[in-house]
C-alpha cells in the first residue's frame, strides 16, 4: 500500500472510523442545485468575455475523402471575418491515449467520417462566422466509405489509416486457465452471438470552449466543458506547442458528460488556435449535430460467446470474441477494448477465460468513453446466457446468479482483486422487493419479468501515460475568514462530486457540509486530479480529502486538548465542536467542549496559517497479460436489477413498467445522490435497450444527428423505479464508499431483454429492441 495509507493510519489513531457518521450518509440536495434550477449559474456558453469573437467549424459532408484543396479567400473577404484556419494550422496529432494519438483539431489531408472538421472561422458574431463557412470551397476526392467493421477487417485495399492493415486499430488476446479444456469438459455449453448498438450519451449541454490568448504574456486561458481538464491541458500543450504552465483551463459548471467530455474537443483546439491567431478571445459552441459528429459514444460490439457450465450450473469457462466498431479514430479505443475483456471476470467467478478482441476503424464518428464503458456490451450478452443456462438446468435465474456470484476477498483469474462485495445482497434485495420468484415464468403472455446483475470499477489503477505521481491531490485551507476551503481538481460533471467532497471533508473535520467551500476546478488554482472517468472520484478524492483533513485535525487537536485540559488522543470533533471523549462538565453534564472556530482562531494566532494536502495513489496489481492491467481497480461497486415489462402484442411496443434496483456502493456518502445516479443509469440503459441508435447510411452519411430523430427516453417513457441501497461498508474505501454512477447501468438492458423473453418466449440478441423487431417475432410465432 502507498504512502497515503501510512499517513492516514498514523493520524487515524485519534479516531477509528466506524459506521457512525454525521455528514457522510446525509441526503443533502446538491449544493449547486438551486443555482442550476433558477438559471443563476453560468455554463461555458453563457460566458461572454470583452472583445470576444465567435468561431464555427466547417464539417465534411463526406464520410471518407481526400482533401484536394481548401480555398477560403472569399470567406476572409466577408465583412466581420477575422481568421480562418485549416489542418495546416494544426499538424500535430492528439489523442487521450498519447501513444496512439491520431486525431487532429481539423482534418489533415483526409476526412474519415461524416462531420469531421476541415476548417474553422472566427468572426465578430456567430451568424457571420456561419456565413463565412458557406464561402469556403473544399475540393474533395470522395473515397468509398466502410461503415461495418465486419466488412472493414476484410478491406486491406481500403485503409482508413495507412499504417493500419485491415483497418485494425488494435487487437489483443488473453488466456487465463485452460478455457479450451474446460469447455470440452463442460456439461453444458451455450454458443451465441450478440450485437450492442451505436449510441451517444445525449448530454444536454453541448461542448463549448472560450479561449483567451494574451499576446503580451503568451498565456492561454481557456474555459471549457471538459471532464478531464488535466488530459486536455496536456494535449493542448502538445498541439499548440506551448508549455503547460502557459496554459490555464477553467471548467465552469458542466451540463452532463457521461464520458463524452472525457476527451479534448475540437472546440477546445480550434478556439485556442484562432484566439492565438487574432489575439482576442474566441468562443466555439457545438451544435447538436457536431456532438454527434464527434461522438465519443459507446462502441458497437459484434460479440461471439461460448460459455460453459458444470452439471450444477457453475460457470466453467468463457470464450469471448469481440469485434469492436471504433469509428474513424483511436480515442479511448484501446482502453475500451481491454475493459470489455476484463468485464468477463466479475461479478461471477469464471475459472477459465479466453478473450480475443479487435477494435476496427470504420468511416463513422469515433467511439469512446460512455458511462459503464466496456461493461455494458459483454454484460448484455452474459446476463442473457445465464438466463438461458438457468432454464437448461431448471434453476431460477436468481439461483444461478447466486451460485456464481463473487464475494469479498475474491481474486479473479486476471488477478483483479475484489476487496469488498455485497453482490449477493443486491440479488437478494432486488428479488425480494420485486417479487421476482413469485412472478417469473408465471405471468400471462405479453407480460414478463427479468433479472440481471452487474458491477463496475471504482477507479483505475493506472494513468494513461507512464507516471508515478498521485492520481488526486486535495488541499484544505483553514482560516478565520472563510472557515474550510477545499481545493481539488476533480470535475463535477453533474454527478455531484462537489457535494460529496464537501461531505467527506466535513465528516473528518467535524463541521457541517454546508460550511465547506469547494473551489471549482481550474488547472492553475486547483490541486491535481486525473479527471472524471472510471467512477474514480468518490474513492480517490475521499482518500486525499480524508488524509488532508486528518493532517488538519492533527494540528488542531493538541490546541483543543490544551483548551479542554485533557489528553490529545481523547479529543473528538463533530458538528462544529471539539470535545473530550471522557471529561464532562460536572458529573452528569455535557462532555467538555470548545467551538471549532475558537480552536482555529487560537491555532492561527499562535502558529500562523493552516493548510494541509492529502493525496491518493491507487494500489497496483500486476496484470499478467497484454492489456491485463486494464480493469484493475481499488474496489468495485455492484448492482442487481429486476425489470418488469408489458408488451403491446399488436404493436410490439415494450413498455417497461417497473425496475427494482439494489446496489452495493458501500457506505453511500449521499444517498439522494446515489438514487439520482441509479435513475440516470436506468434512463440511459433503457434508452440503449429500446430506443436509441445513431443511424448511418451505407455511404457514411449520418441520418439522425439531432435529438428530434435520435430518440432518448423522455420522462413519460420512464418506468417506476424502486432504488435500494443494500447495507454495505467497504473497509478499504474512505468512509466505506464506492462507485454508484456506472455500476447501475450494467444490468438495465439485459434485465429488460430477459423480461421480454419471459413475456413472449423470444430471445433477442440485438439492441435496440424496436417495436418492429418485437412485432415481427410475435407474427413469426403466430405463423408457426
Amino acid at each position: 500500500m502507498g504512502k497515503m495509507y501510512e499517513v492516514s493510519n498514523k493520524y487515524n489513531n485519534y479516531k477509528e472510523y466506524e459506521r457512525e457518521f454525521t455528514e457522510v450518509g446525509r441526503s443533502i440536495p446538491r449544493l449547486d442545485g438551486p443555482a442550476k434550477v433558477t438559471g443563476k449559474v453560468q455554463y461555458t456558453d453563457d460566458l461572454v468575455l470583452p472583445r470576444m469573437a465567435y468561431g464555427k467549424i466547417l464539417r465534411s459532408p463526406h464520410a471518407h475523402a481526400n482533401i484536394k484543396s481548401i480555398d477560403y479567400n472569399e470567406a476572409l473577404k466577408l465583412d466581420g471575418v477575422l481568421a480562418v484556419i485549416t489542418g495546416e494550422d494544426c499538424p500535430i496529432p492528439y489523442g487521450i491515449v498519447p501513444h496512439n494519438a491520431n486525431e487532429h483539431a481539423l482534418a489533415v489531408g483526409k476526412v474519415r467520417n461524416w462531420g469531421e472538421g476541415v476548417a474553422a472561422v472566427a468572426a465578430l458574431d456567430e451568424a457571420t462566422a456561419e456565413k463565412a463557412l458557406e464561402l469556403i470551397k473544399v475540393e474533395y476526392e470522395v473515397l468509398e466509405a466502410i461503415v461495418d467493421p465486419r466488412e472493414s477487417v476484410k478491406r486491406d485495399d481500403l485503409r482508413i489509416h495507412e499504417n493500419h492493415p485491415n483497418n485494425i486499430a488494435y487487437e489483443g488476446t488473453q488466456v487465463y486457465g485452460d478455457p479450451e479444456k474446460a469447455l470440452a469438459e463442460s456439461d453444458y455449453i451455450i454458443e451465441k452471438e450478440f450485437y450492442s448498438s451505436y449510441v451517444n450519451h445525449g448530454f444536454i449541454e453541448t461542448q463549448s470552449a472560450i479561449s483567451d490568448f494574451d499576446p503580451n504574456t503568451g498565456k492561454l486561458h481557456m474555459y471549457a466543458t471538459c471532464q478531464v481538464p488535466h488530459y486536455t491541458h496536456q494535449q493542448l500543450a502538445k498541439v499548440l506547442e506551448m508549455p503547460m504552465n502557459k496554459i490555464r483551463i477553467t471548467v465552469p459548471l458542466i451540463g452532463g458528460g457521461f464520458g463524452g467530455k472525457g476527451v479534448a474537443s475540437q472546440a477546445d483546439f480550434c478556439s485556442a488556435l484562432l484566439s492565438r491567431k487574432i489575439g482576442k478571445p474566441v468562443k466555439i459552441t457545438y451544435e447538436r449535430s457536431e456532438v454527434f459528429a464527434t461522438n465519443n459514444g459507446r462502441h458497437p460490439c459484434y460479440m461471439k460467446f461460448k460459455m460453459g457450465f458444470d452439471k450444477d450450473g457453475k460457470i466453467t469457462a468463457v470464450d469471448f470474441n469481440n469485434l469492436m466498431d471504433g469509428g474513424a479514430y483511436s480515442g479511448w479505443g484501446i482502453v475500451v477494448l481491454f475493459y470489455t475483456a476484463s468485464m468477463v471476470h466479475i461479478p461471477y467467478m469464471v475459472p477459465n477465460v479466453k478473450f480475443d478482441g479487435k477494435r476496427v476503424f470504420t468511416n463513422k464518428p469515433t467511439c469512446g468513453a460512455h458511462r459503464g464503458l466496456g461493461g455494458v456490451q459483454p454484460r448484455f450478452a452474459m446476463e442473457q446466457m445465464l438466463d438461458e443456462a438457468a432454464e437448461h438446468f431448471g434453476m431460477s435465474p436468481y439461483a444461478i446468479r447466486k451460485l456464481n456470484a463473487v464475494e469479498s476477498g475474491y481474486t479473479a483469474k486476471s488477478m483483479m482483486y475484489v476487496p469488498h462485495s455485497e453482490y449477493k445482497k443486491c440479488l437478494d434485495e432486488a428479488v425480494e422487493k420485486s417479487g421476482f420468484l413469485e412472478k417469473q415464468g408465471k405471468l400471462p403472455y405479453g407480460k414478463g419479468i427479468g433479472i440481471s446483475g452487474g458491477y463496475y470499477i471504482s477507479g483505475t489503477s493506472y494513468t494513461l501515460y507512464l507516471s508515478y505521481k498521485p492520481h488526486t491531490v486535495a488541499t484544505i485551507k483553514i482560516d478565520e475568514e472563510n472557515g474550510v476551503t477545499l481545493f481539488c481538481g476533480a470535475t463535477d460533471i453533474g454527478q455531484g462530486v462537489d457535494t460529496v467532497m464537501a461531505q467527506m471533508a466535513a465528516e473528518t473535520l467535524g463541521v457541517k457540509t454546508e460550511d465547506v467551500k469547494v473551489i471549482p476546478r481550474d488547472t492553475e488554482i486547483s490541486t491535481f486530479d486525473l479527471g472524471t472517468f472510471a467512477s474514480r472520484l468518490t474513492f480517490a478524492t475521499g482518500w486525499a480529502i480524508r488524509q488532508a483533513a486528518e493532517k488538519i485535525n492533527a494540528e488542531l487537536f493538541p490546541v483543543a486538548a490544551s483548551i479542554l485540559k485533557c489528553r490529545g488522543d481523547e479529543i473528538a470533533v463533530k458538528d462544529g465542536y471539539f470535545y473530550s471523549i471522557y471529561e464532562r462538565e460536572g458529573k452528569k453534564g455535557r462532555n467538555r467542549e470548545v467551538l471549532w472556530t475558537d480552536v482555529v482562531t487560537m491555532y492561527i494566532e499562535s502558529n500562523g496559517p493552516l493548510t494541509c494536502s492529502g493525496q491518493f495513489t491507487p494500489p497496483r496489481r500486476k496484470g499478467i497479460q497484454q492489456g491485463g492491467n486494464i480493469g484493475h481497480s481499488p474496489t468495485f461497486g455492484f448492482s442487481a436489477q429486476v425489470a418488469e415489462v408489458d408488451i403491446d402484442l399488436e404493436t410490439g411496443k415494450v413498455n417497461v413498467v417497473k425496475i427494482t434496483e439494489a446496489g452495493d456502493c458501500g457506505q453511500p456518502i449521499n444517498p439522494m445522490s446515489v438514487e439520482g445516479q441509479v435513475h440516470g443509469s436506468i434512463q440511459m440503459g433503457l434508452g440503449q435497450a429500446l430506443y436509441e441508435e445513431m443511424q448511418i447510411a451505407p455511404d457514411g452519411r449520418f441520418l439522425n444527428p439531432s435529438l428530434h430523430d435520435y430518440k432518448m427516453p423522455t420522462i413519460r417513457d420512464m418506468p417506476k423505479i424502486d432504488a435500494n441501497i443494500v447495507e454495505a461498508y467497504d473497509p478499504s474505501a474512505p468512509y466505506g464508499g464506492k462507485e454508484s454512477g456506472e455500476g447501475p447501468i450494467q444490468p438495465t438492458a439485459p434485465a429488460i431483454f430477459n423480461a421480454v423473453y419471459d413475456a413472449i418466449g423470444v430471445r433477442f440478441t440485438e439492441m435496440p429492441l424496436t417495436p418492429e423487431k418485437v412485432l415481427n417475432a410475435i407474427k413469426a410465432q403466430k405463423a408457426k
Partner: protein
Amino acid sequence: MNILHEFEYFKPKSKKEALELVKSKGSSAKVLAGGTDLIIQMKEKMIKTDAIIDISDLEELKGIKCEEGKGAEILACTKLVDIEFNADLKKKYPALTYAVSQLGSNQVRVMATMGGNCCHSSPAAETPAPLSALGAKVVLASLEGERELAIEDFIHGNRKNALKEGEILYKFILPEPVKKSACRYGHIGLRNAMEIDCANMAVNVELEEDKATIKNVKLVMGSVSIKPLVSEAVPKVLVGKKLTDELIATTGEAAQSEAKPISDVRASAEYRKDVIGALARRLVKEAYEAAKEA
C-alpha cells in the same frame, strides 16, 4: 443553426392589416402563427423567405367558442395549450383535445397553434385526422371574403394545401356531434412523448337508435399517405352492422388495405401497415363503446 438570410418582418395590428400584407407580399412572405415549424425550417435552411408576417399575437385570430348544441369555432391562432385545457372542448371533442395534448412537448404546445399545424400540412400532423373525423371545416379569409372547405379538402399533400395567395386560415368550424356518436384518436410512435407519429388515426362512430347498429363511421388515417386518408373501405365493412370481434378484425384489414405508407428513419412501411391495423381495431372498438354511452 443561425438564420442567415435577411428578411422583412411585419407584425400587423389587425386581421385586416394582416390580409392586406398577405395579399401584397404574396408568395414572397411566410405567415408566422406559432413558429414552431417555420423557425426550425428557416434555421435548418430548408426554406428562405423574403418576409415574415407575424400574426401570432393577433387577438382577432384567437379564441374558442364552444356552446351547448352549437358545435364549436376555434380561431386559427389559438394556442394548442388553450385547446388542450379547454373544458368544454374536452367534453364535446375529447378526440381533438387528446390529439392536441399528444403534439410535441409542453414548450411547443405553448407556442404552436392549430392553424399552423394544419397549414404546415405535414403528413404526420396530429390535428388533421381528428378534425376530419369530426367533420370540421376550415374558413379561409382574404380581402375578397371568406370561403369554407372540409379539412380533408384543405390539405392536398406533403406541405401542400388549398391556401391561395392573399389567403390565411381564419378559423375551424366543428359541427355539434350527433347523438349516439363518439370519436377517438390514437397514435403510434416509439416514445410516449415528443414523437413524430409513425401512424395516427381518428375514428368517429355513430349508432342507430338501438345503440348497437352502426349508422355511420368515419375513419381517418395520418402519416400513411401524403395527406389525411379518409377510409372508404371501413364504412362498407361496418355500416348497418353491430360490432363483433370478427368485424373488428375485418376493419383492421380494410384500413390496412388502403394505407400507403413509406419507409423512413422512424419506421418501415410494413410496420406502419401493421400498426394501422392495430389502431383501427382498437379505435373502432373504443369509439363504438363510447357511442353507446353518448
